[in-house]
């Protein structure tokens, strides 16, 4: 085996190691590297990948776990917390998207999910009259905020499922960035925030699942952005050849029609999460996107056609 040419390299090495040695002697040397881990939160796997020292990683993991547990305790389907500041904050954000989307995004759809059997997983197609009577208990506008607490009508129930995960990811990633972790992502069951550069020193390449086939619809390359997908393939049942999925149109009480999947990218995961649901339901998604200029959407309609709305993010299909 031939040795590498010595002169320039050895000189470069010496000069390179000199500051490193000084650094080591100063007693604060920490080796940063990539760490990955998975946590089980919100009944889904949460994947974390960050660039930091091993001790920092342990602390970061605990931090993320603590934030997710806290969010889960406030916003799980059984939670009846209507007065904590966290709940009030998220309620106001949800109300804003409800207004901006003409009621397409609505956190009061929980009774519908229950009626259709999505909570108990014993699925039924309810009678039309049943749905109509349930609709009387649907609508964020029916909620009153009085003396620091939310007042719901009897029979109303909140479903934070389309916004709380995004909120948790924003809180968790912000806490990691504040700890000085400059590169990484948190992906909780398809809702994600990524920042800094990936291990290749590029933007993060995020594969988006194809709504009907195995493999990918395409790859988006992003950084300092959140992303979330709402699809009719995530939770559904088929009865008499009809697919009934979990994304309800709060105005009709039936699963929203016309789309297979909507992916939204933008600075806040919370809004990506909520907007992907709003766009999925809406018949005029472009009107919603006009109000969110920093956000972009990748939409697959019910025929499988791909279209883009709003801000354009680097997207390419895979062979």
């Amino acid at each position, binding site marked *: 085996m031939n040795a590498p040419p010595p002169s*320039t390299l050895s000189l470069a090495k010496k000069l390179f190691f000199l500051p490193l040695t000084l650094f080591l002697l100063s007693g604060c040397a920490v080796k940063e590297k990539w760490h990955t881990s998975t946590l089980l939160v919100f009944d889904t796997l949460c994947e974390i*990948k960050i660039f930091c020292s091993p001790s920092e990683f342990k602390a970061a993991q605990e931090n993320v776990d603590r934030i997710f547990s806290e969010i889960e305790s406030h916003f799980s389907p059984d939670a009846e917390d209507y007065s904590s500041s966290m709940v009030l904050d998220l309620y106001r954000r949800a109300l804003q998207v409800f207004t901006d989307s003409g009621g397409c995004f609505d956190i009061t759809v929980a009774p519908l999910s229950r009626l259709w059997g999505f909570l108990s997983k014993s699925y039924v197609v309810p009678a039309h009259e049943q749905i109509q009577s349930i609709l009387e208990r649907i609508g964020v506008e029916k909620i009153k905020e009085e003396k620091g607490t939310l007042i719901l009508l009897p029979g109303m129930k909140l479903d934070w499922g389309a916004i709380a995960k995004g909120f948790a990811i924003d809180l968790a990633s912000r806490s990691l960035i504040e700890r000085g972790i400059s590169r990484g992502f948190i992906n909780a069951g398809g809702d994600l925030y990524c920042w800094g550069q*990936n291990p290749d020193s590029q933007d993060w390449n995020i594969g988006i699942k194809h709504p009907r086939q195995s493999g990918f619809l395409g790859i988006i390359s992003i950084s300092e952005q959140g992303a979330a997908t709402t699809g009719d393939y995530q939770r559904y049942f088929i009865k008499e050849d009809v697919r009934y999925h979990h994304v309800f149109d709060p105005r009709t009480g039936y699963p929203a029609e016309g789309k297979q999947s909507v992916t939204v990218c933008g600075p806040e995961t919370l809004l990506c999460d909520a907007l992907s649901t709003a766009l999925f339901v809406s018949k005029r998604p472009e009107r919603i996107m006009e109000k969110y200029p920093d956000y972009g959407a990748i939409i697959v309609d019910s025929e499988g056609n791909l279209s883009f709305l709003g801000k354009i993010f680097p997207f390419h299909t895979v062979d």
Partner: protein
Amino acid sequence: MERRDFFKIMLATPVLTPLILSSKKTGNDLELFLISEEPQMFLPLLLQQIQEYSPNEGRTFTFLNPHPRENGLKKTLSEKGWRFAREPATAHLTLSFGYLLNKALPSFTLVRKGWIRDIRSRKVHPLWQEMNKNHAPSSCLTIASLKTKTSVPSTGEFVSMYRDGQKIEALSLEENEEKSYKTQGGRITVQIAGGKVWVTESSCRHKICLYSPPISLAGERIVCAPNHFLLEIERSSSIDTVIG
């Protein structure tokens, strides 16, 4: 020289084809190709011009391979506020030297994300004329690559071999081996060991490739212009994670 003739020469120079192709790939947003015997005379001013294309504030530079005008370049660049960095992967500007088979008139061109851009603005035009009038043809090619983001070094996974602009093979950096390749002008032998790659033998005249230090980080390259041969460290640009 007319711009058209210049491109003809540039594009007919086989060494540039792989370079242009790879510049599209490596994420180096801007690559300036400068043919001149005295690149140190022109580079600082040209960089000032092309930095208008790039919002980057980074001011560190390094050499990817030995450059015959290394000292001169270091001097003139530091006069303009550039700092020399030893780690190629962290420098904002990397300079590499290429040797052209035939002498060509002094000239420069800018490739931005794989596309040739005209930078002969009013400010640079006198420079272009001066280069063409008063300077002798040269076979010294200087490639200045500017990154818009400082990248953090990432270890490569494999090394790709490009011959005449075509990728002919990719070898894992984990396997230790020595391999020879036939080229138009002769042959070149490459050694992989301990996650690093270097050239151990080459039929070329100047042996610049042979004196290039071993490479191991993604994006690092060794160029053997006479052999029309390029080695580049790569990583599989796989998907980082999946949503949906």
